[in-house]
């Protein structure tokens, strides 16, 4: 019998809505959707029927305009938001047979601490900017049950070196760092427990071009070295072109196109994707 490779992350029919919904909302849900906002009750359907899989060592790009639901999807995957409905399976958690979205908040915290890392667009969300840089990395290690200061310090130094933060600045608070350095500390923190899955949410937004390039190079290098699975969200097709193996295009909370990155960029099928690619060129 042929055994197929099991995806690291599998998401099925994920829905996330903000608001209770009303009878009028039925009109805007479903395939004939034009917008994801109900003008009557104000409910926002941020993610609708999102289904995808990510395999080991793969980089999946999620691209779309502002308000298309990319960041909400990432928040749902990292349990920052409760999903309204849907299922998610992580291969390293209970052999990939338990819906992680239905787990208790304690179990979700366990999954987040042991099996995931996330880099936020805003470093203030991902870091404790008044704590030391090495303390920020140690936070994740402590949360995963590590209680040996020497080992945590060594791991912290190793990671800071890896992301090109000088070791002599490890006791400095990230609030004293530049935006690029803060993002790199976030990346180090996210990688601290060798998670099988790394979530990157608009990591280069707000950085100047040279720093953007260095952060992207860093992500690419780390991904190659550690064979880590990455889901990266961006509205910048250049970032997606550089990093992603496969790409999902989101519009109004739905996936409108999904395929290999080269295919999406060279031969876009959906009108919105074509518009996006034209804007890039």
């Amino acid at each position: 019998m042929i055994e197929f490779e099991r995806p690291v992350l599998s998401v099925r029919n994920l829905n996330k809505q903000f608001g209770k919904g009303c009878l009028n909302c039925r009109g805007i849900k479903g395939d004939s959707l034009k917008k994801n906002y109900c003008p009557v009750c104000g409910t926002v359907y941020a993610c609708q029927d999102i289904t995808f899989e990510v395999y080991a060592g793969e980089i999946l790009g999620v691209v779309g305009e502002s308000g298309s639901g990319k960041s909400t999807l990432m928040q749902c995957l990292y349990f920052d938001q409760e999903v309204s409905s849907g299922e998610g399976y992580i291969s390293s958690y209970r052999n990939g047979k338990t819906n992680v979205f239905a787990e208790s908040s304690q179990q979700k915290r366990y999954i987040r601490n042991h099996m995931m890392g996330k880099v936020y667009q805003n470093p203030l969300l991902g870091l404790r900017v008044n704590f030391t840089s090495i303390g920020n990395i140690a936070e994740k290690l402590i949360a995963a049950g590590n209680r040996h200061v020497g080992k945590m310090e060594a791991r912290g130094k190793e990671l800071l070196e890896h992301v090109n933060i000088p070791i002599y600045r490890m006791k400095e608070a990230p609030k004293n760092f530049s935006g690029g350095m803060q993002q790199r500390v976030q990346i180090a923190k996210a990688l601290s427990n060798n998670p099988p899955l790394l979530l990157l949410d608009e990591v280069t937004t707000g950085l100047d071009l040279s720093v953007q390039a260095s952060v992207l190079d860093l992500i690419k290098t780390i991904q190659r070295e550690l064979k880590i699975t990455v889901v990266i969200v961006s509205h910048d097709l250049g970032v997606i072109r550089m990093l992603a193996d496969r790409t999902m295009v989101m519009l109004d909370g739905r996936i409108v196109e999904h395929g290999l990155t080269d295919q999406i960029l060279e031969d876009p099928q959906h009108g919105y994707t074509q518009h996006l690619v034209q804007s890039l060129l």
Partner: protein
Amino acid sequence: MRIEYNFAFFDEGSKREIRRATLKAVAIPGYQVPFASREMPIARGWGTGGLQLTLSLVGKEDSLKVIDQGSDESVNAVNIKKLITITTGIKITDETTEATIIQSRHRIPEIPLQAGQILVLQVPLPEPLRYFEPSEFETKKLHAEQEYSGAWLMLFEQIMNYGTMATGADHPAMVHDRYVMAPSPIPRFDNAKLNQSQALILLGAGREKKVYAVPPYTKVVSLAFEDYSFEIEAFQDKCCGLCGAQGVFLDEILDDLTGQTHYQCNDTSYCLQRLNNKSVG
């Protein structure tokens, strides 16, 4: 004009409410039980939490000892004693062994407490995770999920910044392998006395409206890392300049005229008792 108060200042309903909170606190060691903290004739932050506990527990047969930073005669201790005497008429004592209820600010007496005694500690900040997480809603969730990375991270930060755990007082402790508690600002020297204490230890925070408890014979372990063990304040080769006591918590007193440093028992009644015994002998 003489104002007649109810016995122990409070009306009976108020005392009952505080006792109910106290019973719940005893039933769940280390858990912070919210209670309706009353307005008191002393300012918030001057021991209203401890005072409310004492007043709710005190009976006509009790004898009370009040200490403030080890001293029976400080302004805070004297005023609390005065209030309780006026409203109850119970016996006040300086002897630790004679007292049935001991209200204390920031110290546990040097003489070991016995079964049947109640130690009431005044607590300014009952939440051990407060410096890590400012939101009360979030800290409640963290306690519920037994997620104490924040308390450990604070200690890790101290080690990174000062080379050792630098909690001068209020070193967090795990109670009954379940809840991490702030043991009021007692020095680390006294943390060990909490473990398997024969006496009931109650902690009251009036401003924060919380009561928690360490019932007799409860396991209390001060947080420490595998390679950085918990250490109490060391007074090696030092003894009290008055009574000659060793192995007790000493105050360091600098003589402005001579520039010399003297040491003296912090627990004044213990020191006095030793001096009296010497003079009798």
